[in-house]
């Protein structure tokens, strides 16, 4: 809440703080589902429908039902030219999900996304906040293993 109060001091209108406040909610609540959007709308006294329109316009908010690890493989031209499709196929092979799907255990969601601004390190992907660049298929295998361990470790720990 303190962060929210601080945000309000940075903008001349309350509404301008909407996008960063949604980020706060995303981080605090883990995702932006219907209750979370309602919470932000009520907190900021903005019509809920307006907030809904905003959240669905953008692609980078973490929506309800997203797996613990959101694997977003860049698929625009520069990455496609350097094998992004093979990266996607490999992940599908290893995790058993296609782009747009989430594993039944809820640990992984796979998406194909547009240019992430890292074309010189193609092919690459973003997993939650982190960029994983210059990917070979071995790198992909390694990353999946790492994430699996983290996901399952988290469950048992």
């Amino acid at each position, binding site marked *: 809440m303190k962060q929210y109060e601080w945000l309000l001091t940075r903008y001349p209108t309350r509404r301008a703080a909407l996008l960063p406040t949604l980020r706060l909610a995303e981080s605090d609540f883990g995702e932006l589902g219907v209750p979370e959007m*309602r919470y932000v*709308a009520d907190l900021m006294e903005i*019509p*809920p*429908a*307006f907030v*809904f*329109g905003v959240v669905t*316009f953008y692609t980078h908010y973490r929506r309800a039902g997203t797996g613990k690890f959101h694997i977003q493989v860049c698929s625009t031209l520069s990455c496609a030219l350097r094998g992004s499709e093979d990266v996607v196929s490999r992940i599908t092979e290893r995790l058993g999900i296609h782009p747009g799907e989430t594993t039944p255990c809820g640990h992984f969601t796979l998406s194909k996304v547009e240019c992430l601004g890292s074309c010189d390190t193609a092919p690459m992907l973003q997993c939650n906040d982190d960029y994983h660049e210059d990917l070979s298929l071995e790198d992909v295998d390694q990353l999946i293993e790492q994430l699996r361990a983290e996901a399952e470790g988290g469950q048992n720990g």
Partner: protein
Amino acid sequence: MAENQTNDGTVAMTRWQLNGQEVENPTGMTIMEAAKDHGIEIPCFCYHPGLSIAGNCRICMVESNRSPKPVISCSEKIADGLVIETESELAVSSRNSVMEFQLINHPLDCPVCDKSGECTLQDHSYEHGPDRSRFVEDKNIRHTKELGPTISIWGNRCIVCTRCVRFCDEISGTSELCIVERGDRSVVDVFPEIPIDNQLAGNTVDICPVGALISHDFKYEARVWNMDRKDSVCGGCSRGCNIEVETLDGFVKRLMPRENLEVNDWWMCDEGRYGWRHLYADDRLSQATRDGTALEDDSATAALEQLLSESGPVAFLIDPYLTCEEMHLVQGLAASRPGSIVGGWLPDDGDAANFPSGFKISAAKYPNRSGAEHIFGAQVFGDDAKELQKSLLSSDFPTVVAFCGGHLSTGPGESWAKALSSTPTSIIFSVKTGPWLEGASLVLPATAPIEKDGTWINEDGRLQRTRSCWNPGTEPFSVELVRLQTLQNALDIRGRSLSAAGIFRELAAANDSFAGHNHSDLGSPGLLLAERPAGIAMDGGSE
């Protein structure tokens, strides 16, 4: 001072060129609005004079000398030296291109779409669109769902003009609608769990340029080209919103608002809009009865004549739904029976509402209190009414003629019902059946507000024409305007029967408040009672 007013109070004008003609318009107008003044209608989807400018449909593009690219005429303002072409190759091809783009993903729903026949997309497509499609791909799919209790959306038809979203933001101020997603996945939606449910929601269906927003009230009810249309006024409250009444085979199918910038802008409230179903409800009174026995319509009039010819002074209880013309006839009757008095009943106030755009709903849920006060005096619903009720309860009057109109199932209320039943001979005109009819000597079916032909005065003092939803000759029973005149004929008060317009002329001659007014000059928008018409209208509305 208005934007285009000069220092000496005159309106500043801008000289520009439109399709080769030098023209002039008040400074500050948009090209689209200014072109209208010169008879040029530039097509639009997203533009609406009552809403903010969106500029997203792009169909109003025209060629301008100020820009290599076509400009949208809904937002570009006229300027000195501006040269605009609406029919140049660039303008026409831009318009045709937009039309083609609008149609490529549009479903071929016309045969099953309610909007057919009043659809802007159909109309503009006919004028400006291709006559065949080059699109061989799979069309986009978007949701079909209920947005609220009265409205659904067929998302495949939505052209994302945002009129409905702007309406809920700017006019009703309730902001329940939004556009979700992006690109050609965009469509109108509501927040999950929060349906669109404001008092003005029905207007969004009117302004939707396509058949995306569908009204539950009107869904699949009628093809618009089969319906008859009359310009009329809503009788739901004293705002007197101007409406269109649409009927099919004599039955009301839909009410729509009419533009009147002095009264209701382009809008009407849902209560008024959907407030016609009571006409056909189970508690509608359709049969005249004499002491409980059913009567044919002619016999009912005969009974009325018989009861009043034998009476002395008569008490008249009027309602605020009667037209000025009907009230004038009541006054004539009262005058013919010395000692008669007139009082009126009012339903309790409902909820008023004020909306951000300035649109109002009145707490007074009846259309013509003002008319009654001008005809019977300011106290007709006040002291006069109190006195009348007292008299009736003490059985001071042997006969009462009561008008119990309107749409409420409570009628005139308990105390008036008691007063009526305390009177030896009670003659009651009623729209609905209800407890106030108990023990009545003669019960006559009455017209509901949209079945009346005549005038009402709204809460601003505006005299407006209401036109019956029935075509002449197809009334299911003798309307009050006719029955009361037939009665007057029989009682030798009147020589011949007149139309509502004729009755109004009588009223204007007899009552200073109405002097100088006539039906023709009221036309469609009506006139303030205090304003006198300029002269004989050459193009006046129908009588």
